């Protein structure tokens, strides 16, 4: 996994609550057996005026001129500002894959759905929770200033505006550690293999029906 330490980048708006993972990456693109290539279909049904197909070249498709990600001022954005309950719905990791593949490294919202939030950390994407009032100010600053950027510092847990306003955010210690160092958490868990085996031996004695039932059928 790629590490996330500091980021200074262009910000784009997704100014609505309850953005669900179907909206982030519609189901017809989930048929891929790969992890990459979802960026061109990020927010597909909002971004384009026609219905998208998997493996389609999107360069000739009619784009929705009213969708902010299509505005010239938000091109090459790396930070997405969003509203409450971002990423609700399905557990599809294709949602953070699509955001990442498009070029986003960070989403800032007042709240996230649990599974999406968790999936982001597995892909070097940083979800930041800030209070609604902070988001209101950031959205306003974004709309008022073309080329608006933010500076994110994960180690310091800060979001800083060009005007020097600093917002601090909370992040789980373990997730922060993994993200800062780009660590593969499977490798970390396997360092605990002995503890896992001990657990299994103990439970096998207590609840033997949990083991082997499906192996014999």
């Amino acid at each position, binding site marked *: 996994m790629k590490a996330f330490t500091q980021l200074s980048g262009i910000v784009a708006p997704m100014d609505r609550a309850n953005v669900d993972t179907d909206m982030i990456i519609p189901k017809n693109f989930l048929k891929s057996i790969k992890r990459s290539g979802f960026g061109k279909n990020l927010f597909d049904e909002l971004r384009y005026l026609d219905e998208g197909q998997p493996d389609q070249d999107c360069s000739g498709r009619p784009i929705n001129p009213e969708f902010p990600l299509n505005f010239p001022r938000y091109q090459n954005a790396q930070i997405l500002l969003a509203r409450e309950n971002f990423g609700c719905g399905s557990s599809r990791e294709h949602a953070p894959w699509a955001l990442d593949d498009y070029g986003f490294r960070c989403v800032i919202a007042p709240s996230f759905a649990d599974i999406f939030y968790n999936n982001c950390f597995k892909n070097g994407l940083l979800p930041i929770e800030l209070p609604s009032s902070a988001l209101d100010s950031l959205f306003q600053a974004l709309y008022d200033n073309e080329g608006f950027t933010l500076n994110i510092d994960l180690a310091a847990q800060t979001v800083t505006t060009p005007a020097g306003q600093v917002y601090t955010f909370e992040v*789980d210690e373990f997730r922060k550690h993994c993200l800062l160092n780009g660590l593969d958490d499977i490798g970390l868990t396997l360092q*605990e293999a002995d503890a896992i085996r001990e657990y299994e031996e103990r439970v096998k004695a207590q609840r033997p029906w949990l083991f082997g039932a499906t192996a014999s*059928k």
Partner: protein
Amino acid sequence: MASKDGISKTLYDKLWEAHLVKAREDGSALIYIDRHIVHEVTSPQAFEGLRLAGRTPWRVDSIVATPDHNVPTSVTERASGVAGIEDPVSRIQVQTLDDNCDEFGILEFKINDQRQGIVHVIGPESGACLPGMTIVCGDSHTATNGALGALAHGIGTSEVEHVLATQCLVAKKMKNMLVRVDGKLGVGVTPKDVVLAIIAKIGTAGGTGYAIEFGGQVFRDMSMEGRMTVCNMAIEAGARAGMVAVDDITIDYVKGRTFAPNEAQWDEAVAYWKTLVTDEGAEFDQVVTLSGDEIEPQVSWGTSPEMVVPVGDTVPNPEGEADTTKRSGMARALAYMGLSAGQKITDIHLDRVFIGSCTNSRIEDIRAAAEVARGRKVADSIKEAMVVPGSGIVKAQAEAEGLDKVLVEAGFEWREPGCSMCLAMNADKLGNGEHCASTSNRNFEGRQGYGGRTHLVSPAMAAAAAIAGHFVDVRQWLK
């Protein structure tokens, strides 16, 4: 949260502690996973990751797989198995699951195996999912299995790979929420209406960060399949996991299932399962109560599962909402749905009806639909009304009871098992602008097809809507 007396625990506390491999200093924990259910959409990248790292599954006998999201449900397309799947991209995905399971020796109910079906239907049905287990699957509706008195939740593909490789998840304990529904449900009011009423009350983010236990008389009286419908939609209230305490209904349900404990282990298992209840005096971080007697048949009008009203109501007016973000969300939903504020729910014209999905495709759901359909006819204005059983075993059971004939005579299509139009990854989908009465779980924009308009309802309400061509209060038909 610690209980007042320091001893009493919630059901979730007990399930968590029983699976704790290691508590780490940073507050995270390693949690052991007993059962891993795998399907074709969220697993290929996980298996690929495993191979690239030179790893193999930690415990193959913990895994059960089946293809469900992509599989066709038409009898003809299904006839020649994987090779017959017309969409080449879907075919590759289903074939990839078969190949991965074959390579690693994983038990898979393949496409035309009678045991194949929707992951959250086949788990409990086969006894692969049991009380007291931790159960994960790369699908958010895994919460369904919590009905067994288990800790079950959806995970992303990276975590699918993590569980394959280590049998564990790195997790943080969630908070405890009790949703208590007291009283008794009226005739024609179903578990689906209960869970929709709960989501309408607490909102789609109301359960974020919580494991929800559903308690109270309504759930004690509810069948296992009804409890599954309710737990299934815990995620629509924002909670990764929903659960119901073990009682005799749970144990009777599990008994005799293929992968249930054998006779020698049965009594010991039952004794353990009976401890899987919240102790008297245990404290919840949050308690929400509803009165079962007051719940009416529900219909969703918008594009979020919290946008729900009783069938006798009208489409709400965004102007009445004080919160600006909510108000603009409501206005956008009305525009997408092609509805206007104040319109009666029973006046909404319908184009299609879908009875199926991991929420409502079990035998009791098919029976409820058939009961309403018996001796009646689907309205001419309905383009298609399909019933998609949740598994091959549900299908066979329904056919043994003659329910398929009742439904077909009434004008419904009787399909092969799969996720079907719940998420429209296969050929079953809504056309642009079409309204659908659907027993599924999500009414998001485009969920059931590009531009499609979903109204979430119970199976009985969906069947009645198919016959009337618009929503009706099914209670009037069941008197």
